[in-house]
């Protein structure tokens, strides 16, 4: 459950680069640890986000977790569907469960993102 066309963070977000934009969500592992999600809080379109800093949060019945932005940039789109169907993140974390689309400053993701192999190693630990 670690798609090999994505980049990852140590805090269990994934990033798909599409030209100078990054699509961001949380990984299969993250959603499985949290359990059935009940609420998602996301930034607004136009907000500036910074790599490694909080940009939102997700909640299940027994847990809550912050979402950290993997990149620097400006939010250009938010998955509004998640407000009503947070379960999409459980069911399809890399597809329907995407969270935000960020126009990345400088067009490139910052250093320090993990490759699929590196992320798999992290989960092994």
């Amino acid at each position, binding site marked *: 459950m670690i798609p090999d066309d994505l980049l990852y963070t140590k805090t269990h977000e994934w990033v798909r680069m599409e030209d100078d934009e990054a699509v961001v969500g949380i990984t299969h592992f993250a959603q499985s640890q949290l359990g059935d999600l009940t609420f998602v809080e996301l930034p607004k379109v136009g907000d500036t986000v910074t790599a490694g800093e909080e940009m939102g949060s997700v909640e299940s*019945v027994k847990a809550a977790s912050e979402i950290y932005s993997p990149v620097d940039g400006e939010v250009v789109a938010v998955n509004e569907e998640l407000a009503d169907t947070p379960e999409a993140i459980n069911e399809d974390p890399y597809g329907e469960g995407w969270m935000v689309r960020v126009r990345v400053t400088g067009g490139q993701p910052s250093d320090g993102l993990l490759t699929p192999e590196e992320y798999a190693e992290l989960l092994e630990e």
Partner: protein
Amino acid sequence: MRTIFAKSVPGRAGTLPDAPAAPAAAHLPQDLLRPAAPRLPEVSELDVMRHVSELSRRNFGVDTNFYPLGSCTMKYNPRFMEYVASLDGFTKLHPLMAQLRGAGHFTQGALEVLYETERLLCEITGMAAFTLHPMAGAHGELTGVMCIAAYHRDKGNHKTKVICPDSAHGTNPATAALAGYDVVNIASVDGMIDPEHLENALDDDVAAVMMTCPNTLGLFEHHLDRIVALTHAKDALLYYDGANLNAILGKMRVGDVGFDVVHLNLHKTFATPHGAGGPGAGPVGVAERLAPFLPISRVVKLKDGRFFLDYDYPKSIGYMAPFYGNFGVVLKAYAYILRQGREGLTRVSEYAVLNANYMRKRLESHVEIPYDRICMHEFVASAVAQAKRGVKALDVAKALLDKGHHAPTVYFPLIVKECLMFEPTETESRETLDRFVDDLIDILTLAESDPAALQHAPHTTPVGRLDETKAARDMILTDDA
């Protein structure tokens, strides 16, 4: 079971006061009045009695069931304390009466209760001064940490952090944040605060170290003297979370060993009822150097034996409560302390600890006890082995409900996997403990032979396991939603 609103019959009256001589509209302009009456239930007094009595049968309490909920000290709540708090001379006393200069003598009995309770709590804990204002344990924490902040500010110290161990109650970090501090967590080693971890985390920015002793694993901290010395060496203060005071009455006084601030939960150690979530009371005791910062008012005894409320403490943090705290709760705890006395309170801890150890010993060959040594008033077990077969701590807890016992605390402290935390208290008999342990052993045995049988427990309660995810997603929070 239908709600009381569903039982409402338009036009049915409950217990009506006298009709007014004139309606509100005679005195107030129409645009200040509500256009329609609130949709409260229209039911008879008997309807209310039946409805609420039926609700009561759908509840476990200490009065009806063994309630070994760890960290909560669900001991028996003696009823004479309720009688004491219901005396007219207390219930009819308006709190502003004490603030009238000429009517101070109207409240002498109440002020004496406050004064005497503070003195008794000082002697029980070895602290120099107490305030009774905090209205719950977490409220006491906030009061205590605000006193700590005021102390550092007064000294010119610039402190930004509070240290909590990873076994701490969630209220500790939440309180530190509410008092403006950053929270630093330190990892426990062998269930204890590790002096080296603490030393590494203790820099000059640390305002306080918050700890619970015995800790939430039910263990007495082995390195307490080191912790005290390390903390004070950085001019940080040591905070004692009194949730577990029931373990050490008469055996250790937190003031004697170097704690600077302590909050007590009167609804735990001092037997005032929990009331399905409150009210509690969280008095705070401090060392001499922190006394100037306690909230106002303070109760003072004059040379002539009279009591009065003193507001003249310029360094005080201010007002934590509208008046003098949850007075009705304080009254009950005062009565409890008088009833028990020195000897009785010491026995409370001895038997609370005996009961916990007896249960632990009887269970140790049936379930993993991660810290299997002499514990204090509570201990933790881990259902990790059972979970591998599909029976989680939660399933064990639910199965206990079917046997007529309230469940232990589960999944706390966070550092023990599949955690079950038992606190029997001193008021339970050996027979009750044996019955509980026997039932728990049956459940653990069933977990081996037929795990599926436990995964849907409970079956005997008014409802089965409830869909909490649906509750959180739907957010039906009133009968109108």
